[in-house]
């Protein structure tokens, strides 16, 4: 009987031997789109992170007359209260960055949790969770955020939670369909036939197989978070100290004097714009790699 069966190692002929097919991140990094996005993002992140250490002065120090566009020794003049615009700009990025990152993390995390719970329950739990998310989906994210910030005292944490609350139902919707797709695969049935607990199937079989759409969601929600956080900053709702430098706040403070001193607005607007475009390009690159549209023809 054993003569019928091929000897070990025959797979070398038909299957590639060198490593698993490159991961999603590596594949998306091979595209110009993702690389450009990464370069732009890194540039803005570098400014925000390194900025505070190389800034010429203190972020709250008054160094000249208000709204002066040409002050000797100052690169971009002064803002509405006479502080150095360049210094404020270098200091003001980090809050936008960490707030957006945390909003994304919390929002995508919560959405993923709902998705894993709903997409692999096959009971009324799915129904209740998804109808609840539908209710939240009916409100635009900014309206929802404003509502909650009107009720609760604005602080960094309330900002994070409200923005995340806007993300979660959207993430849940997308991730649930991804989970549903994987839940129908035979390897999930195989795990069920071993009598594994639902949560160990969720974490051991479902989660690892939805990382593609999950990464796309992360990129997308990061882009939205940046916009929302900057927007809340503009409205003075980001829960920061009133004189603390923040790109969103800078735009608000500078907008009245825009015609005489455009820099307090232009610098943060450009940075936020670039950051949004950059993260969006990365998300798009990952999405394309996940969908396989970047792939050259199969063999």
């Amino acid at each position, binding site marked *: 009987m054993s003569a019928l*069966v091929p000897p070990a190692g025959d*797979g070398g*002929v038909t299957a590639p031997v060198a490593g698993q097919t490159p991961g999603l991140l590596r594949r998306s990094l091979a595209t110009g789109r993702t690389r450009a996005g990464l370069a732009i993002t890194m540039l803005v992140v570098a400014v925000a992170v390194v900025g505070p250490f190389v800034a010429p002065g203190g972020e709250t120090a008054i160094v000249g007359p208000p709204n002066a566009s040409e002050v000797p020794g100052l690169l971009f003049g002064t803002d509405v209260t006479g502080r150095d615009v360049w210094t404020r700009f270098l200091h003001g990025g980090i809050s936008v960055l960490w707030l957006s990152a945390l909003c994304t993390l919390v929002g995508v995390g919560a959405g993923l949790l709902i998705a894993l719970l709903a997409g692999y329950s096959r009971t009324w739990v799915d129904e209740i969770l998804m109808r609840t998310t539908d209710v939240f989906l009916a409100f635009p994210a900014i309206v929802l955020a404003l509502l909650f910030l009107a009720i609760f005292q604005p602080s960094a944490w309330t900002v994070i939670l409200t923005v995340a609350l806007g993300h979660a139902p959207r993430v849940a919707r997308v991730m649930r369909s991804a989970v549903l797709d994987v839940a129908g695969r035979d*390897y999930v049935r195989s795990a069920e036939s071993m009598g594994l607990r639902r949560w160990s199937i969720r974490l051991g079989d479902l989660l690892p197989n939805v990382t593609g759409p999950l990464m796309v969601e992360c990129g997308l929600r990061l882009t939205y978070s940046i916009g929302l956080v900057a927007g809340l900053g503009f409205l003075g709702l980001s829960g920061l100290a009133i004189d603390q430098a923040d790109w969103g706040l800078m735009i608000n403070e500078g907008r009245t004097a825009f015609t005489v001193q455009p820099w307090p607005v232009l610098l943060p607007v450009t940075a936020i714009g670039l950051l949004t475009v950059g993260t969006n390009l990365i998300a798009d690159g990952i999405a394309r790699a996940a969908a396989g549209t970047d792939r050259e023809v199969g*063999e």
Partner: protein
Amino acid sequence: MSVVDPTAPLSDHPRRMNAGGLQVRGLRVETRAGVAVVDGVDLDVPAGTVLGLVGESGSGKTTVGTALLGGTRRGLRIAGGSVLLEGIDLTTLSEVELRGWRGSRVSYVPQDPTTALDPAMRVGKQVREVLDCHDYGSGPDARAQRVTEAFGEVGLPTDGEFALRYPHQLSGGQQQRVCIAIAFATWPALVVLDEPTTGLDVTTQSLVLDTVRKLTQQHGCAALYISHDLAVVSTISDEVAVLYAGSVVERAPTEQLVHRPRHPYTSRLVAAVPDLAGRRALTGIPGGAPSPGARPPGCRFEPRCTLAVDECARGLPPLVPVADDHLARCIRSADVSPAEVRDRDPEVGRAADPLLRVEGLSARYGKVSVLHGLSLDVPRGTCVALLGESGSGKTTLARTIAGLHRDAEGTLSLAGERLPFGSHERTRQTRAAIAYVFQNPYSSLNPRRTVGDSVGRPLRVLRGVRGAELDRRVGEMLDRVYLSSHYAQRYPDQLSGGERQRVAVARALISEPTLLVCDEITSALDVSVQANLVGLIEEFRHELDLTLLFVTHDIALVRNVAQQVAVLQAGAIVENAPTERLFTDPQHAYTRELLETTPNLVS
């Protein structure tokens, strides 16, 4: 049924004489990088005949088929050779000229009619479309008449009502016949059929095959029938060409090819096809076919060939005549022996002592009832086949037994002990005692887990084995399914279909079950790989005293694996008999129909 009157003058209907047939010479299709996918393909299809093109997955058969329509898949191009039809070389035509040819002089019947037909267009209109597109006949009346004729030719109703239906209102077989009607509507000189019956049940398949054969003769057109299934091809083709790793290795009239193959690959392929009459033992071919770019410089079958000598590796042998109308690409063609016919000793199941007992089992999906109070005994140590077509409920039965379907009533017992329906309600011992191998090896292995992780999982979960002991037993199990322990580090996407299925078998057997449920485990695999897997399962049955429930739609395969057969139709068992008796003395009409319509290698 109105068919074109062949005695009518040619000018009265646009039927053209299809005298020339098809000649393909030195066809080469390569990737952009210049790697040949198929090369040196020579084919001749005289008008009015069917040439069967047989090849396993990756042999390039679909590439050849599309090249005959002047096209290629994205990323490939026709790099050389000629495709002569009616004296015109299709490879020299421009894209615009080709468009005029496709659908009118050359046409194509796809594998899957459900995606080939436009779901939003009435089927009559879809036939009409190709006629309008090529300005068929003298005017609208002639075209309308031709649509009706075309439906009649493929045995579909010719009343106006049928033509007004949408594809979803037709059965799979009817849909495929609509596709065939479209292909033959314009009296083409060449029709390429790419596995047109793969998704169909055997009874429907035989209808479709009859239709194709009849139309080819009636129309006097050349037909190329592409399939992986030598049995199907042998029932429809006048001549068969065998494709291996991108080149034709043998070409001969059908009967001669099956009974006196002159290439070792053909001979092994014939031996791997399950024989309905049970005359041959099922034998697989070791190894796998080389992919484009990894093909050996010499004979491409040489690494797997038992007749290989040093000279075989030196250069690709030419396709030379070995007998009348018989060509083979082998320097040792004289030594090739036909597939062995041996006496099988039919093993009779040990009566009584059922390991698994199913009594009055009914199962539902929501409101749809799938199984209706069926009973079945699976004797210990035997292989019981569960035979049924798609929709018969066979997978539901298998899943219910394995604890994967809970919406059921009735009694299941294993070794006298009552089994609850869901796997969560079963004891750890029961879960370990019943193992399941899924149909599709591409979806049954978690792509994010290594082979070792997947195989070891039941042992970890069900028997609590950990650490070095786990690694050792996983390695042992992989050795036993003829993979080696270094496969443990690999991921599923690095394995071929056959290797994946062996991993799935290893995963099922590692917890030392007493009952193994195999759900169509070979339907996604090539026949040579299927034979290997069946051999492996048989080996385990003897060595581990395993009891098998073998779910399949392939009646020929049943004869080669099972001692007892339960025939399932519409959720009920209509016949249950020892294998030999079922084949020699079928009782139920449905069983008889299956036996009559299943294609077998010509005898």
